[in-house]
């Protein structure tokens, strides 16, 4: 398999240096990298799982809106970014496989590289204040 585009590699190297959870996907939404802080959210280690198809990693946690309803994928920032190549931000709750619920904020942005090519997306998660 060919090496990733330089813009993807640079995003991974940056994520490696950050203390906030970062997820990097390809243009299809497959999870190609997540850093150590993100491992806590997924409950799995990148060194063990490697890359994860979108069907697998999207089921690891359940997004819930303010009313406690499961959010449709199209409302999630990362999915929206993958769809129209724009940055998004949203605060919502997630429930992991253990049933633990947390309020989080997610910011996603598209990786649009040189020559304006769309190469993937990045989502940054952090815990939001419980009201």
């Amino acid at each position: 398999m060919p090496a990733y585009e330089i813009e993807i590699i640079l995003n991974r190297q940056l994520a490696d240096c950050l203390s906030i959870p970062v997820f990097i996907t390809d243009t299809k939404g497959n999870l190609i990298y997540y850093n150590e802080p993100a491992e806590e959210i997924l409950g799995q280690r990148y060194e063990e799982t490697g890359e994860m198809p979108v069907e697998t990693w999207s089921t690891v946690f359940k997004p819930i809106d303010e009313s406690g309803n499961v959010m449709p994928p199209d409302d999630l920032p990362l999915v929206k970014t993958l769809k129209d190549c724009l940055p998004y931000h949203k605060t919502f709750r997630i429930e992991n496989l253990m049933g633990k619920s947390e309020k989080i904020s997610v910011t996603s942005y598209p990786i649009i590289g040189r020559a304006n090519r769309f190469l993937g997306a990045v989502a940054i998660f952090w815990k939001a204040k419980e009201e």
Partner: protein
Amino acid sequence: MKITLRGVRGSIPTTGPDTKYYGGNTACTEITEDGCMLVLDGGSGMQHVHVDRNSTNKRIDILLSHLHLDHIQGLGFFKPLFDPNMEIHIWGPASSTRSLHMRLSRYLSPPLFPVVIRDLPCKLVLHEIENSVFETGPFKIQSAFVLHPGPTVGYRITSKKSVFTYLPDHEPALGLTGILKNTKWISGFDLADGTDLLYHDGQYTTEEYKVRIGWGHSCQQDTLLFASLTGAKHLLLAHHDPSHTDAQLTDMFLSLQKNNNYPFKYEMAVEGMEINLP
């Protein structure tokens, strides 16, 4: 494919008695095969690229890795650009903001240079490239963006029987943990994969690199690791730091030999060196 190194120094020409052996001219490599010529980068070494005036081939292709001054400062002194019988093709990395013509014009125009591009008498064709594949003469050329500040490409040049990879300014180890062992995550890997000859940035010692991370260049130890991971058969360490004298470069190389046991051939690039690949 005959490869002649016309300039192997990084950053700034450093001509003098202390740099006489390895050479002081900045980046330029000449490649010929079947009467066709490629010139990789237009540093000050370009002044020593000479074209056979009796040759029936009136085309030269100049492949720029990027537009830092040490890679283009020789362009204005390249005689074929001033010959109306010559057809010169310049290939350089695309930018998302300015055209190659506009970026080259920053240097090739007053007050930095007396002649503007449009007044060059040769037939000049500019090509903007990114992750591209193209052919000229007997050469199949692959370019790809690589880790170095500003739009920068490396080249993989395939001739009839051999492959030459040119990565003069490259920092694949940039990051928290250096070069990642999974080759999918290594800048420039596809260009150098299994190459016969790898010309690669090796500007710093390991100690020097520690305080120059992010400057876009490699320490020699990382360059050896990169060459090893790509399976290169022969490595030339280049882009010598302008502060390194001949004596220091020789010491650096002896130290590398002492501390490494890589199975492939590696050596320091020397200005004027000629290598024939089958």
